[in-house]
């Protein structure tokens, strides 16, 4: 199946849902669900508006900054936890708590700290993405072959050179963490903007729902899905390129 050039995997199952959606929509049973065809029809309209362009820009900018921050901090935190036992003992519990905590409940707190603008959204994306990246990086470091590290020591590698070796050894796990972080980050950016609701797609969502523009509302959701899936797919491709050695470590 193609949605504006994007190939959706597991297309068959999706198609069934689309058909059910279309039928339910045609019967006009629920106000929430306009027919799928109508949703598709409003896609170009949503994308065409100036407010969408502005919302998309803000969303992408805050998403990418939050994600970049999460990757830098997450990988750093994971390296620290994987390499320094003491740090791991202190941090491991907290990282795990944050990983499984209902983060949406924390967004209001973030809002108090960072105000009603983009910083809150950036912080939300960060909070959603960082922990899984840290934990996967930690796992990758702990998984690094001890004899490889002995090897670099035996040839007199400096601290920095050993770090580089560990980082490269952990790369498959780090990428797996980033891929999960990318998807969680999309959740973060949507939830953050919905709660702030005066900027980005959050503003659009409230605009559409307040004016009962359900077709537009769902079109926006479709776009967000496509965005998240394409990003995850991109990371997937990257992972496939380094995968050959993930399975080849001893």
């Amino acid at each position: 199946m193609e949605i504006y050039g994007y190939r959706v995997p597991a297309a068959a199952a999706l198609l069934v849902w689309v058909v059910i959606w279309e039928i339910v929509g045609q019967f006009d049973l629920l106000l929430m669900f306009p027919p799928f065809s109508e949703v598709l029809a409003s896609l170009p309209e949503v994308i065409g508006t100036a407010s969408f362009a502005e919302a998309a820009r803000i969303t992408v900018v805050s998403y990418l900054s939050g994600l970049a921050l999460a990757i830098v901090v997450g990988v750093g935190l994971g390296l620290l936890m994987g390499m320094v036992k003491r740090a791991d003992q202190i941090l491991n519990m907290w990282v795990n708590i944050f990983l499984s905590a209902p983060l949406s409940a924390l967004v209001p707190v973030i809002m108090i700290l960072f105000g009603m603008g983009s910083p809150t959204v950036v912080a939300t994306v960060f909070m959603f993405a960082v922990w899984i990246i840290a934990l996967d990086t930690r796992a990758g470091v702990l998984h690094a072959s001890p004899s490889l590290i002995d090897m670099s020591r035996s040839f007199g590698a400096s601290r920095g050179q050993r770090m580089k070796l560990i980082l490269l050894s952990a790369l498959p796990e780090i990428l797996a963490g980033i891929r999960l972080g990318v998807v969680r980050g999309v959740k973060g950016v949507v939830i953050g903007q919905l709660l702030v609701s005066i900027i980005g797609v959050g503003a659009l969502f409230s605009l559409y729902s307040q004016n009962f523009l359900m077709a537009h509302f769902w079109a926006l959701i479709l776009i967000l899905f496509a965005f998240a899936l394409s990003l995850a797919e991109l990371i997937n491709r990257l992972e496939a390129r380094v995968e050959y050695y993930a399975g080849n470590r001893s």
Partner: protein
Amino acid sequence: MNMTSATEHAGAPVAPADAPDAIIEVEGIHKVYSGNVTALENINLDFRRGEMTSLLGPSGCGKTTLLKIVAGLLKPTDGEVRVNGAPVKGPGPERAFVFQDFALMPWATVLRNAGYGLEVRGVAKREREERARHYINEVGLAGFEEKYPHELSGGMRQRVGLARALAVDADVLLMDEPFSAVDEQTRRKFQEDLIRLREIEKKTFILVTHSIEEAVYLSDRIVLLSPRPGRVAQIVTPEIDRSGDPEAIRRTTEYLDLIDDIWAGLRTYVE
């Protein structure tokens, strides 16, 4: 129990402890792991320049521990190792290690792996690759420079490990069961190549093995370790002429008798 009974084989004299040609001296080494596992107890040994010495003994007797202490990768609980007279405080450029599990970087080509020791020493790329190529050629891997470790067989991977150790031009090569992950045919070929390499490279080799045949076939001196705690049980000096046909050597009576002798000495520990 007699701790360091040196067997004189074929009339070879045992060198005194302070022999002038000892490149590595191991003195009073004790190693206790995590408080209660005594891996090594009072090891006193000399490794002579230009010789191939095997550390032989049953599993768990502390061979790897001793080799890693010599390499400077492990700290002894007590005692001292000296290389060329200087006490060992960590790894050093006079010693290079060949790992049992190869320890190759899976993301790097054969060429880059073989040159890793030079890379960490800051040797310029051109020279590093030139030297790596030379040793890749010497261990019989010419043509595989651009391959990745997962594209090679176990035997070939170990050759990369050997090339990497040779490339840094260390005086002493420390090898921890380098052939254990390799099939029998490859292993024999590898052993023959190692004998040939020794002639060219004139290095000191310390080889950990638990194959009696391998130890007898390759070494000038065999150190037998007893298990729990690891001590030097016996030192054997095979006098085998290795210049001839490898298959013929494996059939000589000296070779076969010595294997029987060592086995007789070792079986008390295994049973």
